[in-house]
């Protein structure tokens, strides 16, 4: 199989993987919407833990701030402002659900086959350069090689911010 040595990294990976898969499966299977959002918060925190394992501490921090913090709260706000009468019974469409499940499982089978088939020999984690300070390295890369995308993304954020306000305004 995966030729895994049972060290500390694998133990931590296992814990985070269980957290994320459990959260994702619960997200799909819960019936109450708020519970779904809370289980998604568990997935986001697990992803942050995996980023720490992958030596991307800055990204882990951003993940906790943006996803586990902002996006979860935003979704809860969306639910609170839209879900008044959700007590009606869900009309289930078995055919559609089965088709979607078969498609998702088929895609996973394909991806899993490709991953198993690929040759990852010798790729045992040469750490990205400048490992001493992850944030410093990201900052330098961002402002030396990716200045234009960085500025574009700031414009995108401003546009999204103004657009969200304009869309959600009362008399829009």
């Amino acid at each position, binding site marked *: 199989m995966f030729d895994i040595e049972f060290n500390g990294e694998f133990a931590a990976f296992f814990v985070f993987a269980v957290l994320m898969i459990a959260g994702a499966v619960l*997200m799909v299977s819960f019936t109450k919407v708020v519970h779904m959002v809370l289980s998604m918060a568990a997935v986001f925190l697990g992803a942050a833990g995996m980023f720490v394992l992958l030596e*991307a501490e800055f990204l882990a921090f951003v993940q906790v701030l943006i996803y586990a913090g902002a996006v979860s709260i935003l979704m809860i706000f969306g639910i609170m402002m839209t879900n008044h009468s959700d007590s009606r019974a869900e009309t289930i469409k078995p055919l559609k659900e089965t088709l979607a499940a078969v498609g998702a499982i088929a895609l996973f089978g394909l991806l899993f086959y490709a991953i198993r088939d690929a040759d990852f020999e010798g790729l045992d984690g040469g750490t990205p350069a*400048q490992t001493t300070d992850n944030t410093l390295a990201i900052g330098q890369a961002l402002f030396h090689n990716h200045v234009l995308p960085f500025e574009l993304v700031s414009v995108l954020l401003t546009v999204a911010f103004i657009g969200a306000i304009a869309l959600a305004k009362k008399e829009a």
Partner: protein
Amino acid sequence: MLASYLTMAAILFCIGLYGALVKRNAVIVLLSIELMLNAVNLNLVAFSKYGVVPSINGQIFALFTITVAAAEAAVGVAVLIALFRARGTIKTDEFDELRR
């Protein structure tokens, strides 16, 4: 370890895809899309450490993905609130005007 991370991301992506296709509450569809984007981020960061040429660029890409995903979530929720005001529901299968 790389194969483990890639498999993990594939599992998350497929669960997200299933949720986005099946769920009828539009907020949960948005959440499933976030899950899929998160799986992609995991792949990017995994390759930034274990790839052929380990490089910080994978993390930069993940950072941009997170930014765009946050913008998408904000605009998506705003659209849902506007839709709810206009139609009184956010069930995805009740928005079928163009199909009639």
